[in-house]
């Protein structure tokens, strides 16, 4: 039975994990500072984090919070863990940053480190590198959070031999940054903090709207 075993929702400088607020920064704090504070709160020790764009940081932090409540990484083959993300604006936030670096002719020093983040699936790449996950991965660009799309894709992954999925919605957008990451697994895992909710559209919609 495939289940949702943990989820994390970042919105308005607040992290909610499995329905409980676990970390919060003042609303006046910028998204960059909030993400840095979250990183410190998690005691992550991952220097590469500081090089990432906001979208990657949102995904890395939200996934980190969700993963702490399960044994997903240790109880599944890393080649059988899939990552499926989605959002509305692809990589727009960083596209703008890169565009600004090339549109000023008198100060033309385009940054390779910014350009690499002008693809939405780089978010998946960062997560895959962080945890050495080599299973299937896909990034969808759609109108809004789409439970049907994600559930259908998860089901199809399970039919194709995948054992666990890290999925969700992640969008860097000024004043509206958001990450909703849920973990799903085909086998019960041994972490006592894991939740076991049915992997279906109704449940996913509920969990997303809860916060």
């Amino acid at each position, binding site marked *: 039975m495939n289940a949702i075993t943990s989820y994390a929702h970042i919105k308005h400088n607040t992290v909610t994990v499995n329905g409980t607020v676990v970390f919060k920064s003042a609303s006046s704090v910028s998204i960059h500072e909030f993400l840095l504070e979250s990183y410190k709160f998690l005691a992550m020790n991952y*220097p*590469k984090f*500081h*090089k990432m764009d906001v979208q990657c940081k949102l995904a890395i932090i939200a996934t980190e919070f969700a993963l702490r409540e399960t044994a997903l990484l240790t109880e599944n083959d890393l080649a059988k863990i899939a990552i499926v993300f989605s959002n509305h604006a692809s990589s727009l936030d960083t596209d703008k940053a890169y565009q600004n670096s090339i549109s000023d002719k008198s100060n033309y*020093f*385009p*940054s*390779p*480190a910014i350009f*690499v983040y002008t693809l939405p699936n780089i978010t998946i790449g960062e997560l895959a590198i962080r945890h050495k996950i080599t299973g299937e991965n896909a990034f969808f660009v759609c109108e809004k959070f789409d439970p049907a799309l994600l559930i259908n894709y998860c089901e199809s992954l399970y039919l194709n031999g995948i054992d666990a999925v890290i999925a969700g919605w992640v969008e860097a957008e000024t004043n509206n940054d958001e990450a909703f990451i849920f973990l799903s697994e085909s086998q019960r895992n041994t972490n006592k903090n894991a939740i076991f909710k049915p992997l279906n559209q109704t449940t996913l919609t509920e969990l997303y709207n809860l916060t």
Partner: protein
Amino acid sequence: MDALIEKLKGQIIEQLNLAEVKPEEINPDSPLFGEGLGLDSIDALELIVLLEKHYGIKIQDPKDGKTIFQSLRTMAEYIKSQGKS
């Protein structure tokens, strides 16, 4: 040379977002890549941008970076050799 090395430390930390690294932790003779600072090929490209932005030095072939960016000292020596320090 030492002044240039000190200046480069600050510029590298800023350009490469090495938020958790303090200038005094960078040994001028330690390798910049692989071990040590853990830099990768994107960082090498950023160092090329750094040379152009701060020192007006243009590098066309990324392979040249391999010798120039061996350590902070080789980087400083290269800048000196270009008469750009």
